């Protein structure tokens, strides 16, 4: 209560050195932008990795044993399994999709994409949501992600080349962008032709009849058909996200920690300089009886106040930069969540706290007698 009712000393000390304060806030703001950007990319990658599964009406995903996800695992299943699965009690519908890595030639560039072959007659494997065109594609037609289309300025009717075959863009979808790669969709039969194997799929997508217990169905399916992995939609989404997490999180954490360290360095330098310049003021405060604790809190408050305003500045700057970045790099899928912003705010407060450590040590070495200088 004593502190709340007293003079806002920390804020006044910051305001009197406006240039120093602006540099500090700006420095922290830029490290906040970096951290927010990483969070946004991470959320975007997560969303991109899970979107296709999330938007499919399929409730159950079946793949080869030991295969767990769409993005980074190999899965080949015999088309003959379809007959066996159809015998299962409680099954409503199923379809197979074939996934392969494809080198796509587009406007003089060769790009490696995840190529999905699906049966246009079934809704289960269709890309969704569709932005333009149709999902009911014929041979020689292809559906591309809107980020991919934007990057290469593609529109409906344009053509791509895969293994010497030309495909005309018949649809443009959203949510098939995992940043590191995009998904494109062709007819299942054509995918088989490109793979040069018949009667093979990568995944089976299943829906169940009403009132069928999903867990029980999965257990029965695994028992009936050995050598397969069966996942509920929720599990399969999670598997895809985990796959992305293990790939990108260590890198993102490393960069974020470096960003935070830069923020700490900026605050430390600025505050340290401020204490050296104004050491006589601090000596006076010590002389008249301000306790070490009071002075430490005074410095820490200045630091946290600067870093918190740095966060707000960074948040604003990030808001302004995001549309520009997405425009410049269409495959960037940036998603800012409240949780991400909250984490970065917590990081900013920690930056402020850590940034005050060295200045506080300097402050402890100022003698009150210096007031007589």
């Amino acid at each position, binding site marked *: 209560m*004593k502190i709340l009712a007293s003079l806002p000393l920390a804020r006044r000390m910051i305001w009197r050195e406006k240039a120093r304060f602006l540099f500090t806030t700006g420095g922290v703001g830029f490290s906040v932008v970096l951290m927010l950007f990483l969070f946004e990319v991470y959320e975007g990658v997560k969303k991109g990795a899970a979107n296709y599964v999330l938007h499919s009406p399929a409730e159950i995903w079946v793949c080869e044993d030991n295969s767990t996800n769409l993005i980074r695992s190999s899965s080949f299943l015999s088309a003959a399994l379809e007959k066996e699965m159809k015998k299962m009690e409680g099954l409503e519908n199923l379809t197979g999709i074939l996934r392969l890595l494809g080198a796509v030639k587009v406007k003089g560039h060769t790009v490696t994409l995840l190529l999905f072959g699906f049966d246009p007659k079934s809704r289960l494997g269709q890309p969704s949501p569709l932005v333009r065109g149709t999902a009911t594609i014929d041979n020689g037609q292809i559906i591309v992600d809107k980020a991919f289309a934007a990057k290469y300025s593609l529109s409906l009717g344009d053509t791509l080349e895969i293994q010497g075959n030309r495909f005309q863009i018949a649809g443009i979808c959203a949510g098939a962008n995992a940043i590191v790669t995009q998904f494109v969709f062709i007819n299942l039969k054509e995918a088989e032709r490109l793979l040069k194997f018949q009667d093979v799929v990568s995944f089976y997508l299943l829906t169940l009849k009403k009132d069928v217990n999903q867990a029980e169905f999965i257990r029965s399916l695994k028992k009936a058909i050995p050598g397969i992995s069966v996942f509920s939609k929720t599990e399969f989404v999670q598997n895809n996200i985990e796959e992305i997490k293990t790939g990108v999180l260590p890198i993102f954490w490393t960069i974020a920690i470096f960003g935070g360290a830069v923020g700490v360095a900026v605050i430390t330098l600025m505050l340290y300089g401020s204490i050296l310049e104004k050491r006589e003021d601090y000596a006076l405060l010590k002389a008249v009886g301000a306790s070490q604790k009071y002075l430490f809190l005074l410095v820490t408050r200045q630091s946290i106040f600067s870093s918190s305003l740095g966060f707000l500045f960074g948040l604003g700057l990030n808001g302004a930069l995001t549309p520009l970045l997405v425009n410049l790099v269409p495959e960037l899928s940036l998603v800012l969540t409240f949780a991400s912003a909250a984490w970065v705010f917590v990081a900013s407060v920690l930056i402020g706290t850590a940034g005050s450590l060295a200045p506080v040590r300097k402050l402890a070495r100022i003698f009150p007698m210096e007031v007589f200088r």
Partner: protein
Amino acid sequence: MGVRDLPIVEIEHLAKTYFSNSSVTVQAVVDVSLEVKQGETLLISGPNGSGKTTLLSMIGCLLKPYSGTIKICGNNVIGLSQRELALFRLKNIGFIFQSFRLLDFLTARENVELILNLTGMGRPDSSEKAEMLLDEVEILHRADFFPKALSGGEKQRVAIARALANDPRLVLADEPTGSLDSHAGQAAIHLLCHLAQKRNKAVIIVSHDPRIRSYARRIIHMEDGRIKEERQI
């Protein structure tokens, strides 16, 4: 013993020696003993380097002596920790400096309020008391001005109000007229001594200024860290 005879400062055989790396020692204060009673104004004079400010710093609990004892308001302050010393200064000692030492980012009122806040008095009580003190030093009309907008004399008045804010029993002034012209200096010292007398404070002033002699009840003259002469007026 009457109230006015109550010793506020009791010093015995006080010494301060500075040691440097090259094993050169400087004896800043040598075997000083003195006593200052409540309501008494003591002037310490002497040439530069005679140990006046070092002595004042030790009395103000800002500097630890090499040897000897210091009692302020009956408390032996030698053994106190830094934390205890800070609290002790806050409760018992007011400071006035040659260069005023007002915080430039606070107004005159806030410079006084700061001490009150440190003692635990919150706003708006601290604002009211600060105004009362500024009124006493006849600077209330400049209460909302920042130090840079005040003249030297006005700054020293604010510093006097600040020194008295925590109602200390001892006021220490280091060359309080050193940065003022003769008129402002005279006015500041008159005000300080008048208020101290009125409030029965013990005042120790370190100064070269001969005009201050007329306000002191006792004068000690220091040279080479020792008291060379002591005069009762």
